[in-house]
């Protein structure tokens, strides 16, 4: 071998290519199809993995260094927040309920994303793709843990967060975000990437993170705000990965287009349904509001997403289906969702309440065409009844949509007074849906969605009791035992905010901090 001579300086791209691209090889002792058994069954055709453009070029040493520095900063802030009783600086203890929603409903799903990206990373034969996915798998466990660590301090002082992994798997409304992720990870690797990498991380993530992170900032929660900001620099990488995947797949073969289009339709709709919970959070749960759900949808989906779909049109992709219905529903879903959680407040893990007059006026202003007409009378009626000691707790279990698993609370496109009913029959059994979108998703893959673990049906099947419970015993009351199974402490984690332990404690602690009594 020759003695090395003065070397040409490598460009970053060239250098990164050497650091990753050459590492793999065509196996010969085992067939490639056996080494990568999941690369083809979805029907996506990839002819040349080398056409993958690395969306970011981060070698592991740089990654470790950069991320460690971020963690150092973040944990310093979390520690200071805890030490200073930062939680007493939030606007109002009602705010803490948004964190309950987040910790129970999102943080364990960040962990699911960690597993999902590990799965697809291992599954893709292309090196560049695999490295990008595995790095995201690593980032996702970070997000799960930094969220848990940030909110750990809240758990010490407030109710409803103490059993978040159990609650995600059991509490009825949690099956909505959970089934979304179960759906994505049980799909093939390409569909997972369109579902999570593209539709969720790119198209919808701003609608999840901006409301929560800005909500935290607006309501004085430095702890939650900081993990949000610190996650943002990872998100930029995740978003570019989602975009690269879709470009790559569409450019590889024209036969991929209809498959990808169906996935975009499906996952935009699935994601949109999950965001119903965020809509409710924005309009009802933040004591100091950031913007209305409707405004957020217009900015983050209609404007930003619009520019994206305009460019995707060049590949032959059209905007997701059912946007006309979404457009109509943006005036309604937050109110419909809050009505739901309010009336089923006996069976959930956080507190609900009726908006004050001032808050109702804000809602009227933000939803001039719908709030006063359809929702204010309902809320005022409930508030009056509550004052009379007759607070509405709906104790009869609702009918759920087979696909999105949200109770059938949505109304007909164009008619907010009529519940939307759709049904299909598959192998002699009826299945019910909240919308055309959910029905079409089922109809395409009935073998998948017939497996749905629908919380209401599971209760009736006797599957939501702890071991040792005898449902045939005399005087058997299902609600307490179901709450036991959920890990929800009756009267402590649930029911109205008014009169709750959270409310009393916060008032007392804050009083002690701000007065001399």
């Amino acid at each position, binding site marked *: 071998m020759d003695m090395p001579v003065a070397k040409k300086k490598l460009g970053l791209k060239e250098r990164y290519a050497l650091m990753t691209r050459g590492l793999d090889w065509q196996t010969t002792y085992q067939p490639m199809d056996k080494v990568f058994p999941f690369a083809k*069954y979805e029907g996506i055709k990839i002819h040349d993995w080398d056409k993958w453009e690395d969306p970011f070029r981060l070698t592991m040493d740089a990654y470790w260094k950069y991320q460690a520095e971020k963690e150092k900063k973040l944990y310093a802030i979390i520690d200071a927040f805890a030490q200073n009783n930062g939680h007493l600086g939030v606007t109002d203890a009602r705010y803490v309920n948004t964190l309950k929603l987040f910790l129970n409903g999102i943080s364990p799903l960040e962990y699911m994303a960690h597993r999902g990206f590990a799965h697809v990373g291992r599954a893709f034969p292309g090196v560049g793709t695999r490295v990008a996915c595995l790095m995201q798998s690593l980032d996702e466990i970070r997000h799960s843990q930094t969220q848990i660590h940030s909110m750990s301090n809240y758990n010490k002082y407030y109710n409803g967060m103490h059993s978040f992994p159990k609650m995600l798997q059991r509490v009825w409304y949690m099956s909505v975000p959970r089934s979304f992720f179960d759906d994505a990870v049980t799909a093939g690797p390409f569909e997972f990437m369109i579902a999570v990498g593209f539709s969720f991380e790119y198209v919808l993530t701003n609608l999840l993170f901006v409301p929560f992170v800005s909500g935290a900032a607006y309501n004085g929660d430095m702890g939650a705000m900081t993990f949000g900001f610190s996650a943002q620099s990872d998100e930029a990488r995740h978003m570019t990965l989602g975009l690269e995947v879709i470009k790559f797949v569409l450019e590889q073969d024209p036969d991929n287009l209809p498959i990808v289009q169906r996935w975009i339709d499906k996952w935009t709709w699935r994601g949109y349904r999950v965001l119903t919970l965020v809509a409710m959070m924005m309009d009802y749960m933040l004591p100091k509001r950031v913007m209305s759900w409707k405004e957020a949808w217009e900015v983050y989906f209609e404007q930003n997403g619009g520019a994206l779909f305009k460019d995707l049109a060049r590949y032959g992709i059209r905007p997701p289906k059912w946007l006309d219905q979404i457009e109509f529903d943006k005036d309604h879903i937050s109110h419909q969702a809050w009505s739901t959680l309010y*009336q089923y407040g006996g069976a959930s893990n956080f507190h609900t309440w009726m908006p004050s007059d001032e808050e109702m006026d804000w809602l009227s202003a933000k939803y001039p065409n719908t709030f006063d*007409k359809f929702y204010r009378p309902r809320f005022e009626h409930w508030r009056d009844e509550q004052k009379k000691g007759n607070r509405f707790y709906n104790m009869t279990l609702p009918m759920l949509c087979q696909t999105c698993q949200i109770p*059938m*609370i949505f109304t007909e496109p164009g008619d907010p007074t*009529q*519940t939307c009913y759709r049904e299909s029959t598959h192998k002699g059994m009826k299945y019910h849906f909240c919308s055309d979108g959910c029905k079409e998703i089922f109809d395409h893959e009935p073998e*998948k969605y017939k497996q749905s673990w629908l919380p*209401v049906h599971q209760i009736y099947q006797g599957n939501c009791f702890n071991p040792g419970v005898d449902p045939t015993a005399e005087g058997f009351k299902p609600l307490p035992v179901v709450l036991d199974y959920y890990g929800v402490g009756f009267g402590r984690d649930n029911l109205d905010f008014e009169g709750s332990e959270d409310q009393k404690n916060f008032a007392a602690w804050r009083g002690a901090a701000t007065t001399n009594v």
Partner: protein
Amino acid sequence: MAAVAAVKPYEFEAADRLENFHGNQLLYIGWDQHLMFCAPFCFPLPPAMPFRAFVEQVLPGAFGYHPEFKQIDWSKAEWLASGQPFKPDWDKSLTDNGLAHKAVLRLRTPGLTGIKGSAT
């Protein structure tokens, strides 16, 4: 034919097949224009339950919170099953009324339009 793309045959029993409900079947019912109840209800009921018992014993517990429930004139109530007009025989069982597992009913009460006419 729509099918799940999978690495091997992908077929399972439905999670909600009739035999999982210990002798009951599921029946859903929604009260049109009364969205105070955010969604239709789901009940596990004996297939032999007479329709009358369903209306007189089951529904009050579910819909009774609504001030208009007491005002329902049941002789004028209209019913839809799976969206089609449906005339129940009050004294026959659910099964004999043609209501199978996971049937869905809509109740319409003309003249009752919800709290302050808001479909609540």
